């Protein structure tokens, strides 16, 4: 968090924990999928989220983060969860389902109603911002 010696109060710590996907990140990078990370897992996470990690690697892990039910596909339910977390539940259900439909229309290449890893990677290729947003600075 910097190069100064600091002691964090609980309120300050609370201020640093507002990533909506923090639980999913912990689950994806932990060995047993339950959110408990070893040092190796921790290093893994920062290695993937660093600036120089290749795009395909980041896309792979981003896919796993957004795949809430761990079935190797991002289905409509996963998308709804993602959107709810992104907007803190402030979009109406109709809007959420509309956006999900449009996302599936745009990204689903093989038209099976859900996004596979290939669809996701293909979509990421078209989003140059992904490398700079899926990045944690140390």
């Amino acid at each position: 968090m910097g190069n100064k010696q600091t002691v964090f109060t609980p309120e300050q710590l609370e201020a640093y924990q507002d990533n909506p996907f923090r639980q999913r990140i912990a689950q994806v990078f932990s060995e047993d999928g339950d959110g408990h990370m070893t040092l190796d897992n921790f290093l893994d996470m920062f290695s993937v989220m660093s600036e120089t990690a290749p795009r395909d690697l980041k896309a792979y892990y981003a896919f796993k983060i957004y795949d809430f039910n761990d079935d190797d596909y991002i289905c409509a339910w996963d998308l709804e969860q993602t959107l709810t977390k992104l907007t803190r539940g402030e979009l109406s259900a109709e809007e959420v389902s509309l956006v999900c439909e449009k996302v599936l229309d745009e990204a689903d290449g093989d038209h099976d109603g859900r996004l596979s890893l290939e669809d996701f990677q293909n979509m990421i290729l078209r989003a140059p911002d992904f490398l700079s947003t899926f990045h944690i600075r140390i």
Partner: protein
Amino acid sequence: MAQPLAFVLDVPETPGDQGCESSPQDDESEVHHSFCQLIQEQSQWAAEEGLELQQREPAPGAWGAPDDSHQALLGPEVAPAHSTATLRILASMPSRTIGRSRGAVISQYYNRTVRLRRRSSRPLLGEMSRSARPSLRLYDLELDPAAGEEEEKLNLLVKELQGLSVAQRDHMLRGMPVNLAEKRCLRDKSQTLRGMRRGQQHRGGVCSCCSRLGYACVLASHSLGLVLLSGLHALAPWRFALKQIGGQFGSSVLSYFLFLKTLLVFNALLLLLLLAFIVGPQAAFPQGPVPTAFMGLELLTGGGGFAHTVMYYGYYSNATLNQPCAPQPNGSQCTPRAGSLPYNMPLAYLFTVGAAAFITCITLVYSMSHSFGESYRVGSTSGVHAITAFCSWDYKVTQKWASRLQHDNIRTRLKELLAAWQLQQEPRSMCGRLRQVAVLVLVWLLCLGTTLGCAAAVHVFSEVMLESPVAAGQEAALLALPLVVCLLHLAAPYLYRGLAALERHGSPVLEVYMAIFRNLVLKMAILGVLCYHWLGRRVAALRDQCWEDFVGQELYRFVVMDFIFALLDTLFGELVWRFISEKKLKRRRKPEFDIARNVLDLIYGQTLIWLGVLFSPLLPAIQIIKLLLLFYVKKTSLLANCQAPRRPWLASHMSTLFLTLLCFPSFLGAAVFLSYVVWQVKPSSTCGPFRTLDSMYEAGRLWVRQLETAGSSVSWLSWLYQHLVEDTVFIFLVSALLLAVIYLNIQVVKGQRKVICLLKEQISNVTRIMRGIWIRWWHRHATAGLAICRALPAGTGSPRGGDSSPRQDTWRVLGRAAPCGYRQSLRIFAILEVAFGLPPAGGTHVGTRTLLSALIL
């Protein structure tokens, strides 16, 4: 939670260990053949399954073991082996192989088998929570029969890695989605085996210890290089500041500061060249009158104490340094003093400025094309919803209030997208469209009119300044022109923003582009008028004096005034506005950091430096000081007073745009200006390194002629000069070649776009065909299953216990086997229920619910 069944059509990534490398395009006929085969196999299998089911029917006791039914209906694990051609074709379909290399495929398979193995072979100890107890995991590994398979996969991967060069191996290891410990293990294995192999080759020779020593040296130097690299990374300037900014404001505001850093690097490069080859040598041989005493005003006006120093063009000598002898009357060269190196100042000046411009050009074009390659893709304009959903959350952001802002921004963005889409759905009347076009044209005319007005104002004011010469003591009056220009630069963008509020664009990104373009046109117009004023009017007016010095001092004044206005803008635009909006207007929102305007100001400042580098070689030093101060001022003001912009900001697109703007109007304009000065304008005859020549370029031409007469060893240089530079045919040829290359590249991109469309079509065709086959098979089984369900007693317990009956299990299996998504399955089941008249009561109803819940999960 259901695993997707490995259907025969949903082929998992079969690693390429079937030895195939053929691409789908080559096997078109084979594709057709394999599809026919597949259809035949499906029908055969369906017939077999039907027979099997009919066999089991009379023995209802057999249904007590649901595993059999699972097996019968699951199928794929006991499916007849399909032809390798089929599997090969399916595995190498573009949808399965885009962006995948063999090694990555193997590693993914390895990773997945490891996880499945870990999950599946966990001992069932009741409600054991999934914990990372090492002893239990070890237990898993030892009892697992599939561990041998994993070992085999590992060896395959290691072999794959050894076949590559070191760089390729590192690249592949970096891209593999396995964890760090396993990557390290793989790297060590592939390295040691290679080392061992090398060791084996040199065994029994004197060279063995040498090779080992060499190997150790290589390893040591490699690790030293890594340590140095990490040290360099730690030394990177402003690392913590950039992290802080990125954490609180996101990637968009960060792009401004990264751009500032880039400009700093460009200026540092320029300064280094100029210091080494022009300023340094001339400072070592001071000449000319002693400079006047330093008063405070020089910092603003650039004259006075700075006038006759290395800072300006006029100070530089036009002779060869370190060779203080007069040329002999008989025309021969004078011999240099023993032990000294003659330094031809005019030549050095010309060549250094030329080389600096060339290197800057190459660096700019390279970074622009690199950034362009990163940020633009074929077809990247579509898919905005998907990109907003998946790529808009900035993981860098760490503060709670900043991430709340991000939530708001994303929500607003999604609502805007939906609103825009709904607006598009409504057909707009001809009248409304015409009105919009009319408003657009009007606003553009007004903006262009404002630009012309500003340019005319600058022209008139500069003529007035020319007419009334400034007295010796009133040098502060010289600051009037820069002041007027800066005021115009400050006021006009607000006017443009006001006019832009009249337009109603569909996309906010287009608004940003329009605003940037208008501001850019204003700045370039004003700079154009100023260049005309200096080269056209000042040169003529200052015929007998040192006009280059004057132009250099003017540019210095512009740079300083620009800096002062940037500081004032930060102070009033951000700090005071925050106080006003908080205290007086009682708004909770802080002012936004206007990225586009700030970046354009940076580009304008850099253009001034490039324009002035010929007349004032130390101008890049001024710019470096200015950029350093600006970084800290802007950062402090940002952290204290501003918030991130609410508009969506495609950071990488914008970075590319800014680099492009830096290259094309900015650098190109400066290069044209410099070329005109060097080629066409007569240098002043009283000062500077070119005072006796007709043009600055003359110095080069004279030198080449000297080389011709000097000797034959360098005559090739003069030949080159005559036939490549003076002769225009060569330049025409090079331009024609360049145009041809550009045209070819455009055609290649067009072809790639077409290929992408064709592949997309192919994917959807294949899926449609496969799904058609599978649905037919599944329908047949669903009807058979339904018939069985009707025959079964409802709600009887099964040996499995719990509330699952054989009927429900059948339903569950059927549901899992559904090839289509959730909604289609609902429809199909509704149809089947109606078709078979199944009453929505008892076990069937529960079965449907179980089935649907299985589908959801």
